[in-house]
């Protein structure tokens, strides 16, 4: 049993509860336990760095220090939380003055940062620590014929990390999808930003960025987009209607978390994976796959991009 200190992030309690549910369910099947960081706080997202960098570091430092008490490596399922926690951890480890400043602040909550743990993204835990071989062994319902666009997002691969993952041409998301029997379509926009942080401040720019991604997925004839980030999921799914209205398009592409697809392939019930809470229903494509277990041939048809 592998154990990690799990940082759910604010959206896990709200719009992305299904990510949280499916991560815990699939983790349990694979012998991974995610122990929620006790009394965690927000990672600061992007607005904090707009205001004050030290303040942004202090928020992450508190979460890291709590995880250190239990001696567990930290796992974040959200690209933005991951990026913030990862870089705060590295900055504090390599800057004794900064760490001292943070530790002065952390004393107020009886905490101390010593730099003893590492930070990982959830998908990295599955593809590297668990491994594709182990995942393959648990696949009982391969997603045969399901065409999936693997969408990494931006902050998952950037910037400047030293964790062994290729920032420019990663393939692990596609490999994971193939491991669970799905078809990973060529999706050129897979590393391009969805514009989540601009949705309130610069609405038109954000919608145009979502449109580009949806167009790319439709051109790749994807039945579903798979994400590894609650902000990407919210942006791509819930703003699809706004994109259609703004640009006169008619996209209707379901957006699921990679953990939900993994769970389905491992035979976990849809409800346990939080499937059914989408605004763009994934039911039609998933029903199509479920009806054809292991049968090759016609792929389920999404409403967009198909003849």
């Amino acid at each position, binding site marked *: 049993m592998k154990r990690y200190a799990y940082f759910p992030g*604010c*959206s896990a*309690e*709200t*719009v*992305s*509860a299904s990510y949280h549910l499916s991560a815990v369910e699939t983790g349990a099947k694979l012998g991974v336990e995610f122990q929620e960081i006790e*009394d*965690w*706080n*927000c990672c*600061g*997202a*992007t*607005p*904090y*760095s*707009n*205001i*004050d*960098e*030290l*303040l942004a570091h*202090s*928020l992450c430092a*508190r979460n890291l220090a709590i995880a250190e008490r239990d001696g567990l490596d930290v796992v974040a399922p959200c690209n933005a939380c991951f990026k913030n926690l990862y870089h705060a951890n590295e*900055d504090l480890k390599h800057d004794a003055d900064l760490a001292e*400043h943070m530790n*002065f*602040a*952390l004393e*107020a*909550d*009886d905490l101390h940062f010593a730099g003893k743990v590492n930070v990982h993204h959830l998908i990295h835990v599955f593809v590297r620590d668990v491994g594709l071989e182990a995942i393959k062994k648990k696949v009982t319902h391969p997603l045969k014929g399901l065409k999936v666009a693997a969408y990494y997002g*931006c*902050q998952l691969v*950037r*910037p*400047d990390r030293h964790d062994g993952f290729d*920032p*420019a041409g990663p393939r692990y998301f596609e490999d994971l999808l193939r491991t669970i029997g799905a078809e990973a379509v060529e999706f050129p926009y897979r590393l*391009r*930003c969805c*514009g*989540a*942080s*601009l949705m*309130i*401040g*610069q*609405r*038109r*720019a*954000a919608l145009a*960025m979502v449109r580009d991604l949806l167009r790319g997925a439709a051109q790749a004839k994807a039945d579903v987009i798979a994400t590894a980030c609650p902000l990407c999921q919210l942006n791509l799914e*819930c703003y699809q*209607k706004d994109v259609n209205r703004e640009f006169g398009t008619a996209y209707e592409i379901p957006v699921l978390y990679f953990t939900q697809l993994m769970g389905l392939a491992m035979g976990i019930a849809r409800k346990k994976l939080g499937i059914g*809470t*989408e*605004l763009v229903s994934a039911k039609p494509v998933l029903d199509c796959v479920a009806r054809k277990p292991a049968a090759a041939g016609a792929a389920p048809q999404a409403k967009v991009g198909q003849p």
Partner: protein
Amino acid sequence: MWTKPSFADEISNEMYTTGTRGLNCCIQCATCSAACPAVDFMDHTPRRLIGMINAGMRDEVLASNTFWTCASCYACSERCPKGIQPSELMYVLKRYSIWKNAYRNDLVGPEFSRRFVRTIMRTGKSYEPGYAPAFIFEGGLQGMLREMQMGMKLLAKGRIPLMPSRVKRVENFRRMLSRIVPLEGIE
């Protein structure tokens, strides 16, 4: 003899404190602009903005929407052949413009950032229904109705909780933050 640091010095110094290279080594190759997914919505491309900073065009730079249109995706930082991190530059300009109270009033970004930070400083966690409604009027009546419709749908699917969540040791949390910045300054 001491001379007042130029605008370009101020910005480059800020960048050094965040651990990135300064702007004086920019070769104006525009790789940053080409990599940027939001560039169409910026009134100056990142390359041009760097050129303007190096040319000392402080007022024009601060009047630009460029840094508030950055989505923080780091595509530019990944690719800059000189090792400049333009995404850090955008954070630096946001902070600088807020410190100097010299940002454009017609942009939502600064006020949104402030409200977001205030929410977290009070409760330790983000809760969109707490601060997003302040900006719902931005899209006009139509936009507001659409946003509310989406909110209701998410509510019906159980994706928006009725009550904001907060950290348990909120007093300790706030004492911690007050050791970094004076809370009155932000709240």
